[in-house]
């Protein structure tokens, strides 16, 4: 099989060439052909030609600097740091071999998401693990609550016996679990299974005592590191080893957790929460629009990355605390729908500036955007970041700002177009739709204007 690769390290001297050499040696041993373009201090050498690219099965990029990927659009591509190519070139080539050939948009998005997952480390990783376990509870619960409203009217919660009410309360139950789960799985990420107990208990205490989302977040970290400490310093004779996970760790950890939550964490954080909520609900007019614009821009800045997740988590947190419709959530979801929709629109209005493959992907992007899967824009952003990312940030910011300005609010954390028409899920629906459309058009126009013509 033939492969092409690009190696590049920031100083452009040693590692660029070592990686190239490593890949060439490995390919030779595996019986493959590989052409490696080096981007070192002397500039690009052994440049990959169109013919090379056509004959290649996949593209390997081993770089610690930004490599222009637009010429590889459409080819299966794997991107890693330079060290990885030096350490395990054979493994890298194998992974390149196993890349899916027909990269349709949804496959590309899936791959990018799992690559992103592997790169996370440390505090961020723990946080994201917790959030990723929490989100299905939020989404499932939220949609059920919306369904409950749809089937049973706005007073559905007054009953507990009708079908609609049951659905509603089930959703509420799922919702109620989101905060303990957040705490529990942050702790799990840090300390593995034993972390779950204090993490969830801490989270539950947080949700009951007003420190909410933030309290659970803090609780999760405290719980995780607490368990690590217990495991490190408490040593039992071998015969009592079994007692550790079943008795010692749970009891010790929850006692400390409870005391810490009760006497240290809950009060200040509950106060902070109330202040935050108060401030948010007091926001009107220009301030609200500004917040919406900022959140909107964040959603588009690094789709799937920490900034986007932070804005999204903020949105869901406001749902958890106040329970009813949240203007923040509305702005966040609307803004999150814009990037893929805008790109799809752009591929339609300026067909000539996109390759056939990109136009096909644009069709899929309509569906992804409508479903609030912001990541649908990632492959486009990855292949042409300097044009795509600023364009979508502008549109998403416009949408977020408009949504806040029009006082639109949303009761559910996900669902995109599919939840908009359920009664009581969105307030000021016509204005909400206008906000989304406005941002979409703005971004599409900007993007189409700056996109280069395909030669």
């Amino acid at each position, binding site marked *: 099989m033939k492969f092409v690769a690009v190696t590049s390290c*920031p*100083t*452009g*001297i*040693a*590692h*660029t*060439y*070592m990686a*190239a*050499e*490593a890949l060439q*040696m490995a390919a030779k041993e595996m019986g493959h052909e590989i052409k490696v373009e*080096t981007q*070192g*201090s*002397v500039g690009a050498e052994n440049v990959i030609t169109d013919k090379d690219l056509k004959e290649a099965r996949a593209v390997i990029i081993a770089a610690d600097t930004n490599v222009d990927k637009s010429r590889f659009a459409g080819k299966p591509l794997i991107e890693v740091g330079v*060290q990885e190519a*030096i350490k395990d070139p054979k493994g890298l080539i194998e992974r390149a071999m196993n890349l899916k050939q027909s990269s349709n948009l949804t496959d590309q998005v899936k791959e990018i998401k799992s690559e992103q997952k592997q790169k996370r480390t440390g505090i961020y990783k723990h946080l994201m693990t917790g959030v990723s376990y929490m989100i299905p509870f939020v989404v499932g619960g939220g949609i059920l609550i919306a369904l409950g409203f749809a089937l049973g009217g706005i007073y559905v919660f007054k009953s507990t016996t009708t079908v609609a009410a049951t659905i509603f309360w089930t959703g509420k139950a799922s919702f109620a679990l989101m905060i303990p789960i957040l705490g529990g799985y942050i702790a799990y990420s840090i300390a593995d299974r034993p972390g779950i107990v204090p993490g969830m208990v801490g989270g539950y205490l947080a949700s009951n005592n007003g420190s909410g989302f933030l309290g659970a977040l803090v609780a999760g970290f405290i719980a995780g590191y607490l368990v690590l400490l217990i495991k490190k310093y408490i040593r039992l004779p071998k015969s009592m080893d079994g007692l550790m996970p079943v008795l010692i760790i749970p009891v010790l950890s929850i006692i400390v957790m409870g005391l810490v939550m009760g006497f240290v964490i809950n009060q200040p954080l509950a106060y902070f929460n109330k202040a935050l909520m108060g401030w948010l609900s007091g926001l009107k007019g220009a301030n609200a629009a500004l917040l919406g614009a900022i959140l909107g821009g964040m959603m588009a800045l690094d789709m799937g990355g920490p900034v986007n997740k932070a804005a999204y988590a903020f949105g869901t947190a406001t749902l958890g605390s106040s329970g009813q419709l949240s203007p923040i959530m509305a702005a966040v979801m609307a803004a999150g729908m814009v990037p893929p929709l805008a790109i799809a629109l752009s591929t339609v209005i300026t067909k000539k500036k996109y390759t056939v493959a990109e136009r096909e992907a644009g069709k899929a992007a309509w569906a992804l955007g409508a479903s609030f899967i912001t990541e649908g824009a990632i492959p486009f952003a990855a292949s042409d970041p300097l044009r795509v990312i600023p364009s979508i940030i502008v549109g998403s910011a416009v949408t977020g700002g408009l949504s806040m300005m029009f006082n639109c609010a949303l009761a559910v954390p996900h669902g995109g177009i599919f939840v908009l028409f359920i009664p009581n899920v969105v307030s000021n629906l016509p204005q909400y739709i206008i906000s989304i459309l406005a941002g979409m058009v703005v971004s599409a126009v900007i993007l189409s204007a700056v996109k280069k013509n395909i030669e």
Partner: protein
Amino acid sequence: MSTKEMFSKERVNFDLKSNTKDEVIDELIDLLVKDGKVSDRDEFKKAVLKRETEFSTGIGMGIAIPHGKSNAVIEPSIAFGRSDKGIDYKSMDEKPAYLFFLIAVPEKSSDLHLKALSEISRRLMHSEVREQLTKAQTFEEFIKAFD
């Protein structure tokens, strides 16, 4: 000038005495100064250290490739040193360095040192080359690794 021509038997030391990164750079510069390839040791050392601050030249796998481009360099040349006990070089893989290549090029030499670096780096990826360099006792054995 080819990379091989930049080596010389006057500029190899198979038994470095240094214990630290700073000392070993000094020891290597000495080789170049004694051989008349570097006219001003302090100025050249400044160039080498400046380059170190950008990014450690301890590239891992027990190898370090400090280099400097300076007016104090009379002729492009490479000094090779080996420390069997290893020196903490703040390398990228956080392991000690045993093989050292100090590359010196004049200010006006365009990309010569880069070419040398790229060639050396490529060679060093081959474990047989690294082994030969680790075992060599004479210059002749050393230079064979670069055939």
